[in-house]
Structures are given as C-alpha cells and as structure tokens.
C-alpha cells in the first residue's frame, strides 16, 4: 500500500470512528418534578458512569411542566410527584393512542419545615390547612410565640404544590404565600426566618426542623421517617412517578429497569427518599 493511501485510510478511519462514536450515543431526556431533580440527577450520573454510551439529560420545571413536555413530545420521561390527571390521560389517548405508562419509582414524605428556634414542633393536618389557607395567621393560635406566620410554598406548576393543596390545604392557598422555585429554596428561606413555615420533599430538610404532623387533633404527631412512611403512619406521604407515553424500549428501558433494581433503589435511600419495594 502506498504511503499516501495509508494516510488517507487512517484519516477516514479516524473520521468514521469519531462519527460512529457520536451516532452510538444514546440520549434519554427526563423532565418534570423539581422534588425529583436531585434524585433523577443522581440516577443519571451513576448510570452514565456505568454506561458511557448513554447521555441522560435531566431538567426540572415541575410535574405539570414535565407532563406537558411528555404530551408535546419534547421529553421521553416525565417525572411527577403527583399522579397523572384524568385530563392529561385523555390528552395522551388523543395524541398517542395510548394511556401512558406509570412507573412509581420512589416514595416521599412531604415534610413541613419549621425554623429550628420555633417553639412549635407539632401541627395537625387541620392546623396546617388553616395556616396555609390564611385562617390562622399567628403562631400563638397554634401554641407558638405571638408572631405573624410567614408562609413559603411552591409554584402552581409543581406537583408538590398540588399534592399539598389537595391533601392538606383542601382549598385555596392564602394570597400571601411566597412562592419559591424548588424545595431547596424553601428550606433556605425557612432556615433564615424564625417565624416562617414551608413544605417540600423530605430529602431536603437540612438546617431546618421537620414538623411532627398529626392526622387529626387527637392523633399523635409523627415525623417523616423511613419507618413512618413505609407503615403509612406519617399522614403526608406520596409516591414519586415516572411517566412515559408508551412502553419503554432499548436504553430507556434499561435505565428504568436499573432505577427499579436494588442498586437504583439504594440511591433513593441515599438521596433521602424511600424505596418503592
């Protein structure tokens, strides 16, 4: 073989190798629940380290945003911290002729955050509902100091917002709830404000204290722990879901199977959530 041909061959081989290496990259897009962002990123990080040919792109935005992205085809997996709504299923049926695939991938106790120096450490669901709907506005009404309650919450596109509204507030939030993007921001705000209250995923509770939650006035207050969420004694627990428009195949299926495997579920525990099995 001539030297010039050899060079050409080597050059083409390099081009093809580089080209093929790009074409064999498998990309999975995950979008949705802000509560699940840390967990999802952890899953993606570990999975990508084990499978270098796979690229997993994780973004938040809220459960509603994720499901909307699934419906408009801009994401493969929608993370949601609430179950899909009947209206969203109807849209899946209309557009994709499927009813969608629901995969519960972790359990979460929705924590109520209080500042560490707040005298109050226990509230019933009714009291929480009254606080967030604006019926109770002073800590002294629930056994605390004579100080105005400052409310922090999530945006309306958040699954956490919807879950909390449906299961705790059971109506409209008070107009003075300050909305923040993500549970981490809420925890940060509550940690700096003695007379504030917030809610969000249990995995984020650092620098604040978890409030014991009572199912009703007569019940005993329960902290969100692995045991209380598993045995359902903690009253504000929920599943975290992944939604797909149709049965996963190829690398997406492998990624989901891995998430549900003991290895994937171990990361659930490490991130502060609770495994589904």
């Amino acid at each position, binding site marked *: 073989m001539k030297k010039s041909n050899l060079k050409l061959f080597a050059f083409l081989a390099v081009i093809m190798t580089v080209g093929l290496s790009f074409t064999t990259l498998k990309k999975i897009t995950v979008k949705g629940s802000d509560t699940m962002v840390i967990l999802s990123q952890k899953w993606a990080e570990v999975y990508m380290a084990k499978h270098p040919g796979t690229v997993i792109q994780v973004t938040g935005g809220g459960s509603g945003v994720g499901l909307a992205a699934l*419906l*408009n*085809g801009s994401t493969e997996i929608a993370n949601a911290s609430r179950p899909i*709504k*009947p209206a969203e299923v109807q849209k899946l*049926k*209309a*557009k*994709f*002729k*499927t*009813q969608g*695939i*629901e995969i519960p991938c972790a359990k979460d106790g929705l924590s109520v955050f209080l500042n560490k120096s707040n005298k109050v450490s226990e509230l019933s669901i009714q009291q929480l509902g009254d606080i967030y709907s604006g019926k109770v506005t002073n800590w002294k009404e629930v056994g605390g100091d004579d100080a105005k309650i400052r409310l922090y919450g999530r945006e*309306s596109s958040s699954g956490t917002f919807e879950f909390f*509204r*449906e299961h705790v507030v*059971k*109506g*409209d939030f008070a107009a003075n709830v300050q909305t923040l993007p993500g549970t981490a921001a809420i925890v940060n705000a509550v940690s700096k404000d003695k007379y504030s209250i917030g809610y969000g995923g249990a995995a984020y509770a650092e620098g604040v204290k978890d409030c014991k939650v009572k199912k009703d006035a007569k019940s005993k207050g329960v902290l969100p722990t692995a045991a209380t969420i598993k045995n359902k004694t903690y009253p504000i627990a929920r599943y975290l879901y992944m939604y797909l*428009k*149709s*049965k996963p195949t190829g690398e997406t299926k492998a990624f989901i199977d891995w998430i549900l495997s003991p290895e994937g579920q171990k990361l659930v525990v490490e991130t502060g959530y609770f495994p589904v099995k």
Partner: protein
Amino acid sequence: MKKILFTGLLFVSCLINAQEVTNDTVKSNSVDTLKTDELTRLKESVDDHSMKLAGYEERFSALETVVNELSKIKVSGYIQAQYEMYDSWASDGSQHGIPVTGSAYEDNSFYIRRARIKFTYKPIDGVNFVLQPNFEVHQVTLKDAFVQLNDRWLNTFSLWVGQFNRPTYEIEYSSASREFAERTLMTRTLYPTERDQGVKLEADFATKFEIPLKLQFAVLNGNFGEGALANQAKDVDNGKDLMARAVYSFKFPSKGLGIDFGAHTYLGNTTVIAQTSPVTVFSDVNNNSFTPNVGDKLKKELFGTEMQLYYDFLGGLSLKGEYIRGTYSGTTNTAQVNTLFNANKVRNVEGYYLSLVKNVGKVNEVSLRYDVFDPNTKLSGDGVKTKDDLKYYNWTFAWQYYFNDYIKVMASYTLPVNEKSLNAGADYIKDKHDNIFTLRLQARF
C-alpha cells in the same frame, strides 16, 4: 577620626530610622483614611443598592400581582383552513358539484372551517369561566359559554351551567384532535352543532377514589342547533331534555392496553309549537300519516353504547366505536328545524361507527372509519320513498402529518354510499357520486 565616623554613621542611622517611623506613621494614617473612605463609599453603595433593591422589590410585587392575575386567564384556540373537492354529480350527469346560492354549482373551494379562540378564566381554585367564540366569514357565533364549579372537598363533582358540549364521546372529542375531517353522519344528525344550553353535573371518581368511573347528567333546552340562530338563544317549547352518560375505564398496563366502555341516553321531545293552515301532516315511525295538535310532544329518545380501545403497539393504536338507536323526531317549523332531519316525521333510527387510528412513527397517523346511519329502520330498499329516509354507509380514509405539536396537515377522503331505491329520486337509483376530499392545515395555540 574613627570616633567621628562612627558618630556620624550612628546619627545617619538614627535619622533614617526616624524617617521610617515617620513614614510608617504617615502610611498608617493614610491607610486608615483610605479604609474609612472605602468603607464609607461601600456603605453608600450598599445603601444605594438596598434602596434600588427595595424599589425593584416593590415594582416586582406590583408586577407579580398583575402576572398572577393574568395567569388566571388562559387563551387557546385553533384555525382550520382547508381545500375541498366535491365529487358530486346529478343523476343525468348534467351538473358536477354541490349547489350553492342560485343555480351555481361548485366542485372545489377553499374554506375556513374553524377559527376559534377559547378564553378560560380561573379566578379562584375550583371555578372556571369558559368563553369560546367561533369566527366565520359572515358572522361570529358563540360556541362555548359556561361556568364550571369544581368541588374542592372530594375533587369529584363539577357543575357546568351555560352552553357546552352534549355528553357523548364523539361530541366531546375535540375537532382539533379528531383524525377525520368531520364527525359521523349519525352524530351530526342526532346532535346538531354538538352543543346545547342547560346545566350538567359530572362526577369523576378517578382522582379521589381511584375508581375509573365518570358519570354525566345534563338537563338541556333541547333545541340548540335547530332553527334560526335567534331561536336557539332560549328554549322554544318549555320542555327540557335529559342526557346521561357513564364511562368506565379498564387498564391493563402490562399489556399496554386500555379500554373505555360507556353508555348514554337522550330523553327528550320535539314539541309541536305551531300548526299551519291547512294543517301540516306528519309521518309516524310506521310511516303512517298523522296530524299533531299544538303542544303535542313527539318522541326524541336515544340509547347509545361506546367503546374506545387504546393499544400501545408500535407507536400507539386506537379502535373506537359507538352505537346509537332510538326514536327521533323532526319538524320543518323554521324555529325548530334540524337541517339534517328536515321533515315532519317521527322515525326509528339507528347508527354506528368503527374507527381505527394508527400512529406511524412520531409524525404520521393513518385512520380508517366506517360509519352507518339509518334514519328510518322500518323501511329499506325500494320501500324508501324519500331520500331523507335512505340509509348511508360511509367510508373515510385519512392521513395526518404533525409538523409539531401545534401544526398538522390532514388529508381526508369520505365516500358516502347510499341505500338504493327506485322510489327516492333519480339520484338514488344507484350510489350517488358524492365523495368529498379535504386537505386541511390546522394551527392551534
């Protein structure tokens, strides 16, 4: 000499040291001054920025209030612009197309089928106001206008008051999502213009109770879509019509299968609100003549079943069907006339459809529908004396291409095949050529 030199050096050394001490003192003093100045400037800057931030916060709060209010209003809508070709011939082959005003016939046209904007205002949780006008070349008509109250305690019940879709599957399945150019002849005839005015109670047990059951119950004027628009603004006969529907969804996630089963009924009347002189004679379900009096109520009772199957097979597939039968009545009275049931008659009617839709890849969809409507089940073949009593078997083939989530192109071809009769007019001795091709561009937002 050495002593003098030593003394001199010592003096110089002391002088230098003294100078350094002086310099240090001066330097220290100037650094302190600098630090104080800088701190003052920094404080001023912080104060300035704090004031600016407070100003921004105030402005942001005002803007947030406006944005929060605006976020309660949702605007959506769609436009369907299309080109149609009508393969319609007179029996003697003399005229091609469908008649328009006067004697002209048209066999193709551009047409704006829909131009709708839907406004939804949600002032508080659980309350929706919906307003949907339809813009046409010559008029603007009101399609949806209702208040929806959702129960906030059980998340199960919702009450609708105003003008809204009648509760059947094909009607509630939006025109913007539909895979065929038009609804079936059965639905278009039995539920003209889809909507009616009244009150509707819905119960969806899926969210709170995790039971995939939906119930709908409606009390309606019963005359919407009939007669002149002005007559549709209010009830024309005092009598209210009732509708009820139930749908249960089965899910088989491991098989990627979902099946919805349902049934509905329509219980109403066509009241004879006027008689002519000489009297108008009607025809009953057995095709016998009778003369109703003013105030007589002619039966309008329908019973239907439905099924929708969704199968996660190579990108999604749906198989849908509805079957409706019952007794239906119509009148030529201009205040009540249904243009697709335009005769003074009471008839036993029957119809059904089956549609198959398959997604092909991510952007293509092919569809096939077979629909049948018999406006008079008591007569067939040559026994049919008027074209209005002829049974129709319609085939529709369609293809849709989705540019993105907002824009799609549809090509739809409908082949109506009529029942043949020697006594229903020359056009219907054999199958009338009346196929329609539609090429539609739809944009939604």
